[in-house]
């Protein structure tokens, strides 16, 4: 898609340079980084000896730094290049003045200052209108289209349009050699600089409306200074091709930056710059497709509790919308109808309705699941994993491999009947993991593990079972409270409470047994894995190198039976994964096997056994 821009970038460059009257041109972007990976030959030739006017008060060093590699450039490394701009003074930069002239030619060379797609003028206001649509409609209906309401509505719409226009007009972003800059605002201006090494992921999302218009929202997630904090850059919205290009450029350039730090084949990056075509094809070269959703996998949606409940959610929303827009009328009508209709008929209707709803639950689940997971694919490219899905709203999440510390497999009892699991990545500094860390849709375990094995690395050891005392603890917890309630209620003669609690107590037994059976932890030489839970069972697997500490906690009750919770501390995902009710001694051995350097110094071995743990570890 770079090829689309490329012809335009050449011919369009000179006018920008000459009429760049103190506009929005940063040296870091225009000539400087054009020496880097992305832009074409023409672009470079154009630039030679004629760097763009610097209207960059800060005089970014990196831009100039690159330029010194071009033979014609007379610019010293650390000075803002103002010398040979054809007498153009370094005018104060304007926040939005430049873009319009660039815009006619479409998007310029890769390192240009970019604005949002003009089509975001349509999307932004419509998206905002969508949330206001019902209130406005309700206002119009209730207010009987009187002039006041009409005028107010008109003003609101116009204000939205103006707001959208101002956003579009003032929003600029620019991919420098080492950083991404996003500037916006007319009155309250903001500028956000995100160093490229800090970028953790680039998400591309497009709703149906976005896709009709061929645009997408790009979210750039970056690690902030603190450990947990992340800061996002959001570009709402750019052309689809531009979104794709941005993702590639950002991640690739980041990879190059990191590579350069490690002195890894800097030459390759240069070669890439030489031919735009090569750059455009590059993703095709190293893109590996790990997974593409087979048709029958959509059926697994019927196993997901969340999706099974969708019909009810949809119904409530529908009713809520009706009520909101038509006010009391609907409720009144319903009440009238209910009170005036024959009771037997009503009962029949209700039973049929509920029955149909229950019968249709799996159907609804599959449909809504298919909508959100349509065409799920998992690919690897440029040191990242890219998961893409969705029918109307297409969402693509890019996770950097370097940040992926492991994976989690989840299943609920329903999914277990079909041997299905869900897969999520354990990623450093990733927010909204419920959506963004999803690597695969629900699928049969064998296939999921196969994908894990090819895309990441599969945990291949058996999990150690936890001591029997853990089962008793689980039984006590699941059964005892209800037994107590049953006894008390029976003593007080409240039959229904006694019966309910009694039933729950009985149900607690299989639950406790299952919870016990899911407990386990293991180590296969490279990866640590812990598993727990029943109604939502999860097995987390992390690399050995990601383990950044251990915590054992032991309550009074656990001490009696020699149990302890061992938490594996990980600088990713939820921060820690716990092996509940493991044997204290065994878990110490376990930790010592995983990270001997961390645990060994504090071990004492009774009766001089050496490495005797291996015998104990066989359960």
């Amino acid at each position, binding site marked *: 898609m770079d090829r689309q821009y490329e012809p335009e970038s050449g011919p369009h460059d000179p006018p920008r340079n000459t009429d760049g009257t103190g506009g929005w041109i940063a040296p870091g972007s225009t000539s400087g980084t054009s020496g880097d990976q992305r832009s074409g030959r023409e672009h470079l030739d154009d630039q030679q000896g004629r760097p763009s006017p610097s209207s960059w008060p800060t005089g970014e060093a990196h831009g100039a730094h690159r330029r010194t590699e071009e033979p014609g450039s007379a610019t010293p490394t650390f000075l803002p290049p103002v010398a040979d701009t054809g007498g153009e003074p370094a005018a104060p930069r304007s926040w939005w003045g430049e873009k319009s002239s660039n815009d006619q030619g479409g998007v310029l060379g890769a390192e240009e200052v970019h604005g949002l797609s003009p089509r975001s003028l349509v999307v932004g206001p419509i998206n905002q209108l969508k949330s206001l649509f019902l209130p406005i409609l309700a206002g119009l209906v209730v207010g009987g289209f009187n002039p006041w309401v009409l005028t107010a509505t008109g003003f609101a719409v116009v204000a939205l349009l103006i707001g959208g226009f101002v956003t579009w007009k003032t929003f600029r972003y620019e991919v420098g050699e080492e950083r991404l800059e996003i500037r916006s605002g007319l009155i309250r201006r903001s500028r956000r600089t995100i160093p490229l090494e800090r970028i953790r992921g680039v998400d591309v999302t497009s709703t149906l409306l976005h896709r009709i218009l061929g645009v997408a929202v790009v979210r750039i997630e970056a690690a902030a200074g603190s450990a947990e904090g992340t800061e996002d850059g959001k570009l709402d919205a750019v052309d689809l091709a531009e979104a794709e290009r941005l993702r590639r450029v950002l991640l690739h350039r980041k990879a190059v930056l990191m590579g350069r730090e490690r002195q890894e084949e800097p030459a390759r990056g240069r070669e890439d710059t030489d031919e735009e075509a090569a750059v455009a094809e590059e993703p095709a070269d190293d893109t590996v497709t790990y997974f593409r959703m087979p048709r029958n996998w959509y059926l697994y949606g019927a196993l997901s509790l969340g999706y099974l409940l969708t019909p009810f959610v949809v119904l409530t929303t529908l009713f809520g919308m009706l009520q909101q827009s038509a006010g009391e009328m609907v409720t009144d009508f319903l009440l009238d109808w209910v009170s005036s209709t024959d009771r037997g008929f009503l009962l029949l209707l209700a039973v049929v309705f509920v029955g149909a709803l229950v019968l249709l639950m799996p159907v609804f689940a599959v449909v809504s699941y298919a909508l959100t997971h349509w065409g799920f694919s998992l690919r690897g490219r440029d040191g990242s994993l890219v998961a893409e899905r969705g029918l109307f709203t297409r969402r693509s999440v890019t996770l950097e491999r370097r940040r992926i510390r492991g994976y989690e497999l989840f299943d609920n009892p329903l999914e277990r009947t079909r041997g299905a699991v869900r897969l999520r990545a354990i990623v450093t500094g990733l927010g909204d993991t419920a959506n963004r860390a999803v690597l695969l849709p629900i699928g049969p375990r064998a296939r999921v593990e196969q994908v894990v094995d090819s895309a990441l690395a599969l945990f291949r050891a058996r999990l150690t079972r936890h001591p029997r005392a853990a089962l008793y603890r689980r039984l006590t917890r699941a059964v005892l409270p209800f037994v107590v309630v049953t006894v008390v209620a029976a003593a007080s003669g409240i039959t229904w409470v006694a019966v309910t609690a009694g039933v729950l107590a009985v149900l607690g037994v299989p639950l406790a047994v299952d919870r016990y059976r899911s407990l386990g932890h293991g180590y296969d030489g490279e990866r640590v894995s812990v598993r727990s839970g029943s109604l939502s069972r999860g097995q987390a697997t992390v690399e050995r190198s990601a383990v950044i500490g251990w915590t054992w906690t032991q309550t009074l009750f656990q*001490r009696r039976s020699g149990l302890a919770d061992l938490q594996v501390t990980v600088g990713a995902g939820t921060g820690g994964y716990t092996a509940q009710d493991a044997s204290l001694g065994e878990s110490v051995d376990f930790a010592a096997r995983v990270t001997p350097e961390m645990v060994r110094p504090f071990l004492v071995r009774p009766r001089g056994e050496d490495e005797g743990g291996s015998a104990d570890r066989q359960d």
Partner: protein
Amino acid sequence: MAHLRPPLRRVSGRAIGVWTLRLVFGSLISLLLLSALAWVVGTFAWDWVPEWIRRNPWVLPAAYTVYALLKIAIVPSWRYRVHRWEVTEDVIYTRVGWISRAWQLVPVSRIQTVDHTQGWLERVFDVATLKVQTASYAGSSTIEGLDAEEARGLSEELAVRAGTLRDDAT
């Protein structure tokens, strides 16, 4: 089967004072609230309050006082016996708690921040709290009740060592 030996060093003995006073203040506030409640119940004697509570409103504060006194007498010294720490070449090893216990190992190379804090009560007793944070939400380690001078030295030393040992830290 091997087991973990306790960390070598105890915290400062003055930490007992801090914990005791903290418990005393906390208990006093609770006692005050409970007394106020008892007084209100005793004075207004609402109908919906069960009979025996209306008759003996001061049972609850009295019971709490006994509980608080026991706690103040037992917990701080018990805690002192459990709280231990040790900083080796590359690991910080702590044990905290009293009834429930927690052992924690944090590698020095993964330290991101070292906080050295001193509340007013801690200043009175000249002790300090050292908090070591890693990239994990769950991986921060706290040593309470260190001698203030020692804590300061330790925090500086750890910061330096974390800097030199530092790999990616995540």
